[in-house]
Each structure stands twice: as structure tokens, then as C-alpha cells.
């Protein structure tokens, strides 16, 4: 088997901004984290279209709103903790409520921030961003999808929250054929006994879990839900109807994120067991990423365990 290439989605985000900067007219804002969010890649190429706002995320979001209200497309970037956390109300009232065309590029989401620890490990952003009416909430599973999401966001009118990671994860999608569609899941593996719905770097972990389950004769479908809002209702209902059990996997609190979004659709349309893998309502901590993934149960083994349990509950 060819070696799988790994890259952090934040890296792909920065590269995509620089690449599409040639073709499209947009500006990029950052809050003293250009080197980390990778908007620095764009800044290098298009310094006249890059504006550092300093360590002032709330101001940055409302500035972005003003730029959008004047007809231009701004990307605004910081760590997820500060973009969705510190600036929540600016995003809600300056961007969400007037439905302005601002693209929020939030990097360093989840516990794979690693050593920086809990203050920087945002596990709440999917939940809060999902509650803003009209906000599209997207988390790409790999670099190919991250690039596609950036180009899609440029061409879409409306506020978008894009969630990117710090940690390198496998590139699994095909760059030439892949196209991102809002509100559309991507099925990566067929299966009949259970559906594993992942988002972000947990998609590749869900694929590993499906392989573990296959060894026991359990057929698991694997789905990538990059579009968390709007969620692909038809595909979630199909998973419930056709496999009768669902396990979700995300690098987020199990409260309010993908698992909740899926459960909302299932309970209202086609009830079946839905078990959620994610951070179980606790704060993160400092440590090496593999150690943290293990400690917080963001593993193939845990997804497989939950899958067996969900099947037994049918």
C-alpha cells in the first residue's frame, strides 16, 4: 500500500487562501496568529490584502462584518477558542444576525492542540456556532476537503464557520474528483449493521474502527459529515433506516456537536440507537496528542465498542 500522506487542515487552509487569492478578490484578517493559523501563507503573497488586527478577536469579527457589509469578502482567522469563544457575541450579533458574508477560519480546534492545554482546546465551538441561525458550520476531514471548502465558501453567500485542526491527519480524498457540497455527507465505506458518522480527523479513526469491526463480521458504513450545519438529514435518516444503529465521532464535547445534530434528526424522523464518541463533558489538558486521544477515548477501539453496543440495543 502506498504511504498515506498526512497534513494538518490548517496548513491546507493557508495554502488554499494563497492559491485562490489569485482567482478571487477577498481579504484576510488575523489576530496575531498568522504563523499558526497559516494565514501567513496568504500574507506573504498578498500583503496588501492582509490585515493583522492584533490580539483583539472581538474587534476583528465586527470589523469583518463591516467589510462584508460594504460588499467585500473577508476571511477572519484565529484559534477556534478565540474565534468562537471570545468573539461569540460579535459573531452572533455583528455577523450572524445581519447574515453577513464573513468566512471564519477557526484553527486549533479540539484536544489535538496538545501541549497548550485546556485554555486553548476548544470543545464547544460546534455547539455554539450551530445555534446561530443561518451560520454554515463546516469541518473538513482532510486537506483535500479543506481546500475545497475554502473555494466553496468564497462562492457561497452567507456566514460560514470553518473548523480546522493543528494536528496532521491522513489525506484520504481525491483532489481531482472531490467536490464539497453544503449539507451533503460523503459515504466512504458501505455497510449494513451500523453507521459510523465522523467529522474532522475522527473520520479516519472511524474508518479504522470499521476495519476492526469487519474482523468480527460486523459490517459498518462510514460517513464523513463535514457539513455539520446544515446536516445531511436525508443521509442520516437513510443510515437509521438501513443500518438501524449509529455511532458519531467528533473531537468536541459530546454535548451540542455532531452527535447532537445527528440525534436531533434521528429522534424526529427514524428513531434508532445513536451513541456518541467525543470528549465526555470535561475540559482538555496538556499532553502529547496520541496520549490525549487515548485518554479521551477518541480511538478506533472506543468507536468499535460503541458500535457493538449500539447494535446490541437494536
Amino acid at each position, binding site marked *: 500500500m502506498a504511504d498515506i500522506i498526512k497534513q494538518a487542515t490548517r496548513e491546507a487552509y493557508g495554502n488554499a487562501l494563497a492559491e485562490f487569492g489569485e482567482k478571487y478578490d477577498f481579504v484576510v484578517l488575523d489576530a*496575531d496568529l498568522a504563523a499558526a493559523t497559516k494565514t501567513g501563507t496568504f500574507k506573504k503573497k498578498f500583503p496588501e490584502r492582509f490585515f493583522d488586527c*492584533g*490580539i483583539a478577536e472581538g474587534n476583528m469579527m465586527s470589523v469583518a462584518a463591516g467589510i462584508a457589509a460594504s460588499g467585500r469578502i473577508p476571511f477572519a482567522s484565529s484559534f477556534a477558542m478565540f474565534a468562537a469563544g471570545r468573539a461569540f457575541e460579535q459573531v452572533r450579533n455583528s455577523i450572524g444576525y445581519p447574515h453577513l458574508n464573513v468566512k471564519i477560519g477557526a484553527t486549533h480546534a479540539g484536544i489535538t492542540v*496538545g501541549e497548550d492545554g485546556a485554555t*486553548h482546546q476548544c470543545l464547544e465551538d460546534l455547539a455554539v456556532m450551530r445555534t446561530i441561525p443561518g451560520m454554515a458550520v463546516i469541518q473538513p476531514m482532510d486537506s483535500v476537503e479543506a481546500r475545497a471548502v475554502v473555494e466553496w465558501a468564497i462562492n457561497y453567500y452567507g456566514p460560514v464557520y470553518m473548523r480546522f485542526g493543528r494536528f496532521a491527519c491522513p489525506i484520504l480524498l481525491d483532489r481531482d474528483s472531490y467536490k464539497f457540497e453544503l449539507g451533503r455527507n460523503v459515504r466512504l465505506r458501505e455497510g449494513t449493521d451500523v453507521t459510523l458518522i465522523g467529522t474532522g480527523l475522527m473520520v479516519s479513526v472511524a474508518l479504522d474502527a470499521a476495519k476492526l469491526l469487519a474482523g468480527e463480521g460486523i459490517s459498518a458504513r462510514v460517513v464523513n459529515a463535514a457539513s455539520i450545519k446544515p446536516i445531511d438529514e436525508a443521509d442520516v435518516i437513510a443510515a437509521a433506516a438501513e443500518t438501524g444503529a449509529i455511532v458519531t465521532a467528533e473531537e468536541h464535547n459530546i454535548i451540542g456537536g455532531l452527535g447532537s445534530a445527528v440525534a436531533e434528526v434521528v429522534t424526529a424522523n427514524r428513531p434508532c440507537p445513536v451513541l456518541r464518541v467525543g470528549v465526555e463533558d470535561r475540559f482538555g489538558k496538556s499532553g502529547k496528542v496520541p496520549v*490525549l486521544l487515548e485518554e479521551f477515548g477518541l480511538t478506533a477501539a472506543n468507536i468499535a465498542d460503541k458500535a457493538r453496543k449500539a447494535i446490541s440495543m437494536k
Partner: protein
Amino acid sequence: MDQATLKLLKEKAANIRLGVLEGIHAASSGHPGGSLSIADILAYLYYVEMNVNPADPRWQERDRLVLSKGHTAPALYAVLAEKGFFPKDELKKLRQADSFLQGHCEMKHTPGVDMTTGSLGLGVSAACGMALAAKLDKSPRRVYAIVGDGETEEGQVWESAMFAAHYGLDNLCFILDLNGLQIDGKITDVIDPTPHDKKFEAFNWNVIEADAHDFESLEKAFAAARACKGRPSVIIAHSVKGKGVSFMENQVGWHGSAPNDEQYAQAVAEIKASL
């Protein structure tokens, strides 16, 4: 300042710097630049200025320190270990999953840490709350907060400044670590927060200038802050980011990267040679 005190402070500051580098090197991550720029300030605070008790870290009548620029936790951990709040051995476990020494300051599990910080701009306000509480308690305890110069770009810093002056919190002293750098470059290039003196004066604060690496200058500054009644004080501490390690000094690249083995050895040698 007498020679014995000066000698002690120099030694303690060097040990803080060594502790900073030991932890960051072992973790292969962390923020050396801004940790080294506050080493002398922390030595002065913990060995001269502040009233604390390592045997009873939560003693209610202690003075408080809020490290609002919480990414420079390694420096605070080093001085706390030096004072005996916890064993020095812990320092090399910085940022590991089996240690209480989190990447950013965390008050619940680390003896001697008075406030959880790391998200910039929040700590200064918590310090205001502590100073207000001391007033309500009619207690003489004092509250210190170390704030980054880049951090002053956060609007909340100025909200806290307004609050402290309004309530006459003369038991509150900010130390502004004016090292001139943040992550994306020089503070004056990224988004200029200067002049700090005029801004704080306009917010009705007592403004004091000091050399962050000169203990006699710090002694004068802290005495002036203590003597000021009716309003809060800010010590604008002119510092060098990366101070004490030649190749880190004034280099923006050393904000948040760890030294390799060779660089670590050189840094340790330089600090030891300075004594």
C-alpha cells in the same frame, strides 16, 4: 538594596531562567521568550515584594499574583518550585499528560497559582476582582498582575483599567512586560498599542517606569506603587524578550518554540556563566 539581597535575587532569577528552559526543552514546546523577560520581575515579587506562604498556598491573607500573559507559565512554575510550593523535579514534566503543570496557568491543581489564565486579556480583570475583594474584606493584601504588551491590544485590558481606577483599587499593581514583541512581529508593526504611559494616565492610573532587568529599579518602582493611595499603579517594565540567552534576545521566533539539545546546552551555559 544591600549586596546580599542583590546576590540572592540574581541567583533566584538565574534559577528561574534555568527552570523555564528545562521544562520547555523537555516538553519540546512552550514559550521561552516571554518567560525569560519576566524572570527578574518574578524573582523580585516572590523574594522581596509579596507576602506568601509556600506551606499554605491558599492562605487567605496572602498577596496574589495573576499572570495574565498565561503562556509564560513556565516562569511562574519555576519561581514557585524555587520557593518550595512543589518539588523542582516537577518542572521537567511541564506540559505532559501526567503532570499538573499545564501549558497555561491553572489554579485548581498547581500549588501557588492564584488564577487560571492563558486566554489573553482575562487575567487582568480577575486581578481587579481580587483587589476589590481585599477592599471588601478590609484586608491589607495586595494584588499583582503581569500583562503582556501585545496583550494590551485586547479591549478587556482597558475595561479592567477603567474598573480599577473607578473603584480606587490602590492595592492593585499591574506590571506591563514591555518587551516590544508579540507573535506576528513587533507590537508597533502588528497593531500599535503604544503609548502605554499616556493611555494608563488617561485612565487615571499611577504610571511608573522601570527597567525589568535591574533589581534596584524594580525596588524603587514597587515602593512607589505601594506608596500610591487612591488609585491603581502600573509599572511599565522595559524588558528584553528572551533575556539571558543571547540567541533568543529580541527574536520574535523564540516566542513559542523550544530549544533543541544543542541550543539548550548553550542557553544553560550562558545563564550559569552570568552568575
